[in-house]
């Protein structure tokens, strides 16, 4: 048995003999004793000395024990100061009064020191228990405040990262809860140098900081690579590798990525573990589901990662709609899930496409009885391609040492063509020339067009007239993937030449491929067709660059860019 710790005990008793006797008994038990002869003195002494425990006579002059006990309990606040009533009251009503007044126990006269010692011990145990509870509660409250503050800081940092994108573009509509980050939801959008748009809706496992912490490196990769002109596949590979490396084994990020090309009127989709997205074709009213074909990001090693995307044609005003699982998982009072069927019903009932979000939110409210705060939705439409592009990349040098008279040639052969996308690198190289920076969008678009023509039509021998309808579209990309996989020989060459001219300079780009070529004259004759899904590439090159020409039976393309130094 543990030895009793010495306490400070207040004895309030009006009978002098009893007071003396009790003081001696309590002192002999090792405690320090304070005395009071009536209730008022007891309260005063309590205020001044803060004893650990009080032995209180019930009937005293000036102020009785009941009133004194009430006042002392108030003064003690949250702490437990046990009060043991001393009484020779026999009626149970009187005893009940003791407890109602805040007494924790009572001791009958004549005093039995063994019983008194036992009661003091028991009361002290309770007192210490209460003190521990309060201490831990305060510790938890402090800790909670630290956590809240950490989250505030994380949210502030993340908001900066998240808003370097283009979510406010005119063709994007989104709904995201204020605490989305802390539910693990991530919504990013950015322009490519060519004016295409990459959009990502992600959902990290877990909540709170662990989920948020993975979001930041992911967002940096997404924005960085998109701005440099990398395609979805490379960006996905990089994001997957990064997450696999930095996250614990049991953490991952479900995500749907889109690459919307206004120029080629198509959307490229990759869905790893997210609920179905939907491509809404306005003309037919059809909603094409975009299901998850891949594991979430951060699970597979780089070798095993599958970066294959699906490509769908889009017409102007068509929309892609993505949602997080917060919608599907909304439960009602009976734990029934909202589910995909109900979502489909909302789609079917929706008359005004612009009101889709409101319809869904209303349906969720009706179903659940209240709104849910962790739902993320985004809708991206294809508008006409005359859009403002995002901000040009920021450079840190002053331009004093930019290269003005140089040429470079590259040849990309065989298996390299399968995996390597040289466009971001080539663009970065060209942007070393300050005069070209203002035209980075046009440069990228033209380079991309010439390169992909050289690769797809030239080396792979694909016929772009296949892309005349949705089925043909899918077939084209299947064939592209298959032929690329099987490719052994073939090359695409890129020649760049920069020379000063007048106050500015001139860039000549020439792209050659090892393919069969095409009938240049015939293609040039075709009118530019805005409805057809293919064949506008040549027109684009002629529009954006100068002196575009094709030679060697279409196997070699050349185009020029000029700039003037601003005065």
């Amino acid at each position, binding site marked *: 048995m543990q030895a009793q710790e010495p306490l400070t005990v207040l004895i309030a008793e009006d009978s002098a003999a009893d007071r003396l006797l009790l003081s001696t008994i309590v002192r002999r038990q090792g405690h320090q004793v304070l005395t009071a002869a009536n209730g008022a003195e007891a309260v005063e002494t309590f205020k001044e000395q803060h004893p650990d425990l009080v032995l209180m006579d019930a009937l005293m002059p000036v102020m009785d024990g009941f009133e004194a006990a009430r006042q002392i309990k108030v003064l003690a606040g949250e702490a437990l100061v046990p009060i043991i009533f001393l009484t020779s009251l026999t009626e149970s009503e009187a005893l009940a009064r003791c407890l109602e007044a805040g007494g924790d126990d009572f001791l009958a006269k004549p005093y039995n020191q063994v019983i008194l010692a036992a009661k003091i011990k028991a009361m002290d145990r309770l007192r210490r228990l209460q003190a521990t509870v309060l201490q831990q509660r305060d510790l938890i409250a402090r800790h909670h405040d630290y956590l809240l503050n950490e989250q505030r800081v994380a949210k502030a940092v993340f908001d900066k990262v998240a808003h370097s994108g283009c979510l406010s573009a005119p063709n994007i509509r989104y709904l995201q809860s204020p605490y989305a980050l802390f539910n693990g939801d991530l919504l990013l959008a950015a322009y490519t140098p060519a004016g295409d748009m990459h959009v990502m809706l992600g959902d990290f496992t*877990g909540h709170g900081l662990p989920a948020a912490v993975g979001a930041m490196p992911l967002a940096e990769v997404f924005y960085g690579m998109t701005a440099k002109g990398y395609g979805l596949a490379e960006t996905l590979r990089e994001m997957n590798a990064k997450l696999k490396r930095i996250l614990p084994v*049991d953490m991952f990020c*479900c995500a749907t990525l889109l690459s919307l090309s206004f120029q080629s009127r198509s959307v490229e989709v990759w869905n*790893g*573990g997210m609920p179905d997205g939907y491509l809404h074709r306005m003309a037919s009213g059809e909603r094409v589901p975009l299901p*998850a074909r891949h*594991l979430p990001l951060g*699970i597979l090693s780089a070798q095993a990662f599958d970066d294959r995307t699906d490509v769908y044609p889009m017409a102007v005003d068509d929309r892609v709609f993505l949602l997080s699982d917060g919608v599907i998982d909304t439960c009602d009072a009976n734990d029934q899930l909202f589910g995909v069927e109900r979502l489909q019903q909302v789609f079917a009932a929706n008359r005004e496409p612009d009101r889709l979000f409101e319809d869904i939110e209303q349906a969720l409210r009706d179903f659940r009885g209240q709104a849910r705060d962790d739902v993320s939705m985004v809708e991206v439409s294809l508008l006409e391609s005359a859009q403002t592009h995002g901000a040009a990349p920021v450079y840190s040098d002053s331009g004093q040492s930019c290269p003005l008279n140089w040429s470079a040639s590259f040849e990309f052969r065989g298996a390299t063509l399968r995996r390597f996308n040289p466009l971001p690198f080539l663009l970065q190289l060209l942007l070393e020339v300050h005069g070209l920076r203002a035209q980075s969008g046009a440069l990228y678009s033209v380079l991309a067009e010439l390169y992909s023509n050289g690769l797809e039509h030239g080396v792979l021998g694909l016929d772009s007239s296949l892309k005349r309808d949705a089925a043909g579209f899918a077939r084209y990309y299947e064939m592209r993937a298959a032929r690329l996989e099987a490719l052994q020989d073939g090359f695409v060459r890129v020649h760049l030449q920069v020379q000063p001219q007048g106050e500015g300079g001139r860039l000549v780009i020439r792209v050659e491929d090892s393919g069969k070529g095409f009938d240049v004259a015939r293609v040039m004759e075709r009118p530019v067709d805005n409805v057809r899904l293919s064949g506008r590439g040549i027109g684009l090159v002629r529009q954006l660059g100068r002196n575009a020409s094709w030679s060697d039976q279409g196997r070699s393309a050349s185009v020029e860019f000029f700039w003037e130094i601003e005065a």
Partner: protein
Amino acid sequence: MSVVTEVSPDQKKLTIAVKGRFDFGRHQEFRESYERLDKKPESIVVDLKEATYLDSSALGMLLLLRDHAGGDESDIRVVNSSSDVKKILAISNFDKLFDIS
């Protein structure tokens, strides 16, 4: 106990049955069910017959199990999944990592 384990007599097969909600609360129990064995089993069966619900932390736990059992070299089957559970596993494409039935 909501996680019940059974080891075959030759210690080559481990069966882990998860009952009720397979969520974050099961984390400790689930890990202990395979970490504490004397001999690493050659194959593992996760029986979800009585599992009513599966969330992303359960998916994470399966990944931890797979990593512990040798990653790509592991032999893990997830059996007796209800249709709800199967749906969740399908959306996350976990059938690419586990044999699911």
